[in-house]
């Protein structure tokens, strides 16, 4: 059993099409932890000690949020700035997160083909996530490929929300039950509902 901690962040919760449903469904799964950052810290007064204690209790840290301006909503940056302290997450004696896994679950408004050198976003999605990837590396954590929904605005009309949420739940349960093949994701850019690498149970 891996201990999974989901940090959910959406500042305009009532405007969410996909993330809200994902978070609601994730809450129904036993044996994992989920934190709504904007709910817990509406005034951004992040409790560093509590967050660090949370990190120590879990093996996999998953940030779930929409993609805003090629990054996460601002509270996740605030959380990183405060919680990943020198001496805790990195630096001399900062080995508390060593060996853990960081992962992201993102919804992007643009279509998949836009996130390429020829598309209108000009870069692959992973390029925008390099700050997070390097953050994980500096903390000696594994950075797994992100679970992504492209064209999230059209998803409701094209009945794409349900499969994405179902894939999300499957992903969560697989991580919880140690059935998720993190090693296999190192070869992949992004994960989608249909490309989740599950190891066949023991």
């Amino acid at each position: 059993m891996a201990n999974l901690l989901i940090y959910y962040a959406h500042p305009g919760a009532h405007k969410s099409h996909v993330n809200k449903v994902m978070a609601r469904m994730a809450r129904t799964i036993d044996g994992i932890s989920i934190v709504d950052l904007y709910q817990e810290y509406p005034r951004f007064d992040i409790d560093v000690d509590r967050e660090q204690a949370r990190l120590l209790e879990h093996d996999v840290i998953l940030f779930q949020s929409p993609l805003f301006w090629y990054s996460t909503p601002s509270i996740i940056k605030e959380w990183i700035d405060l919680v990943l302290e020198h001496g805790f997450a990195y630096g001399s004696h900062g080995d508390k997160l060593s060996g853990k896994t960081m992962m992201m679950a993102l919804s992007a408004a643009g279509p998949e083909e836009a996130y390429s050198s020829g598309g209108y976003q000009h870069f692959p999605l992973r390029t925008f996530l390099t700050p997070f990837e390097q953050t994980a590396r500096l903390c000696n954590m594994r950075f797994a490929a992100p679970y992504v929904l492209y064209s999230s605005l059209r998803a409701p009309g094209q009945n794409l929300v349900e499969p994405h949420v179902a894939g999300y739940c499957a992903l969560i349960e697989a991580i919880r039950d140690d059935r998720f093949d993190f090693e296999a994701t190192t070869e992949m850019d992004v994960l989608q509902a249909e490309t989740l690498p599950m190891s066949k149970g023991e």
Partner: protein
Amino acid sequence: MSDILLITFVFLAAGVLSVPIASKLGLGSVLGYLIAGIIISPILAVFGVDVVSIQHFAEFGVVMMLFLVGLELEPRLLWSMRMRLLGLGGLQVGLTVLIVMGVAMVLGQTWSIALAVGLVLALSSTAIVLQTYNEKGLMKSDGGQGGFSVLLFQDIAVIPMLALIPLLALPELAESISHGAAGDGHGGGTHGGDSHGGDGGHGSGLSLVDGLEGWQQALVTLGAIGAVVLGGVVLTRPMFRFVAIARMREIFVATALVMVVGIALLMTLVGLSPALGTFLAGVVLANSEYRHELESDIEPFKGLLLGLFFITVGAGINFELLSANLWVTLALTLGLMAIKCGVLLILSFLFGINGSDRWLFSLSLAQAGEFGFVLLSFTVANSVLPAAIADQLLLVVALSMLLTPALFIIYDKLIAPRFVEEEGREADEISEKGPIIIAGHGRFGGIVNRMLRENGHKTTVLDYSSSQLEMLRQFGLTVFYGDATRPDLLHAAGIEAASVLIVAIDGKEPTTEMVRQVAKHHPHVHIVARATDRTHVYELYAAGAKDIIRETFDSSVRAGRSALEALGDHPYDAERKAREFVRGDRARLVSVAHLYDPDIPPLENTAYIEKLKEYAAESQAALTGRNNSFTMRVDRGWSPPTPEDVAEIEAQSKS
């Protein structure tokens, strides 16, 4: 009656006219008073005013001054000064007495007269020097501290001197003087209120120690000192708490005066120096929260009495005698000042007082002082000095005091500028931030104080409630008792050097008035004021407060936000709605505050009324739920692009 009024008018008017002129000319207030005295002395002569007895009354100003000096001096500080006090002070008095005595003997006086002259002239003028140090801000300098040590030692040394002088009595003088002693203005017994006392063990008047054996006298004296110290520690607080019931300004002043006068009286009764007694009481109270209150109550009386004292010194100069013996007097005076200055210069080398401080120390104490007058009358009454010598010495003392401001001018104009460059760098070190003054320590000010202290800031708390302050004292906080709206109390609390003032006192009008006063007279102070309601905000804004905090607004907004959360709002949505509400409310408040004018009655201020009406309509719409501009503002942010936006961007990038 009309005589008293006339004399009072003459004295006050002389001071009022001459002091500003003297200050304007850079001569200092002391010289101003002295000149005023000289000018009015013919008028006083016409009316037959007894200048000497007024002077004895005015010497009470010195007693008050020493009380105030004591208040500024914590016992700890006094103890740390002991080396300088005994070393500098003891050597100054000892050496000066010896040299003056030697000179007097060379001039043909007997040793006993010479010693008495030495004692009289060794003392300097506490009144002039401390007043000038304070006025010129020299008190904290090395020279000022050294000078203060010497003066303090002299004040204490007066007591053994008073004991010594009767032993020097000349039999032949005693006989001649015993006839007219009762009516003589110099007779010790006639000055029951003589501030430097000493007449207790001698002659008429009230006394507790007359006719007692030596050991009984000592016991009574020690008992009196013990009573002052113990009373200061134990009785002050209950007394002020009792007085606070009346909640009247003048009762506080009266209480402070009762304390000082009572201590002076007690000291006189046991034959001690009242100045020393009140000084002791001041030291005892230096750590108490009533310090500022006492300071600001006594200060004006001290100033007036000292002014009166200096005027009488000026008026008391015997010009006939002076003109008859002008050159002798002048030579004696300058010689005395040279001797005193020389002794002080030697001491400054021994005690490491350097640079401009050395000259400040030596020049400022070169005069003889008001204690000299006291000792002179005492020596004559005790048949130690013949009246002719005493009159001559009186002139020397007065003239040297008259010349003191000139010495300060020499220091200011000739000596200090030469050392400015050298010492310029040291001044930079004084970068300590001014204190934070919290006026009112109730539920509001108390929290502000706690927060600032937790963050390591030094605060000065002023409050009217004894029980509040007592509670704070138990936590080791520095607190001061008094009516925070009084300018003199604010002054005592250090408003001149303060960086921030938090006005958290009760009542709308006192708050506004305090803000107005401080903003006007101390524009450098950042004022944070508590407002009770909207109109009060406008008043405080017009009065000049920089930060205006409505006392219940923030907590009401939080209550509203909690209600929104309880209704199912996401906490971050509730937070955003609360912020938007605060922002809108504040914007309205600011725009109305700009229109409000305290000089125009609100009902006649049309622009103000119009704006209020406009906002009233808006908030009514909000109350009835018809205002959607608010929700639109809250809704902004994080709206995703529409599919059309995405299509357009795609189209652009393809073209």
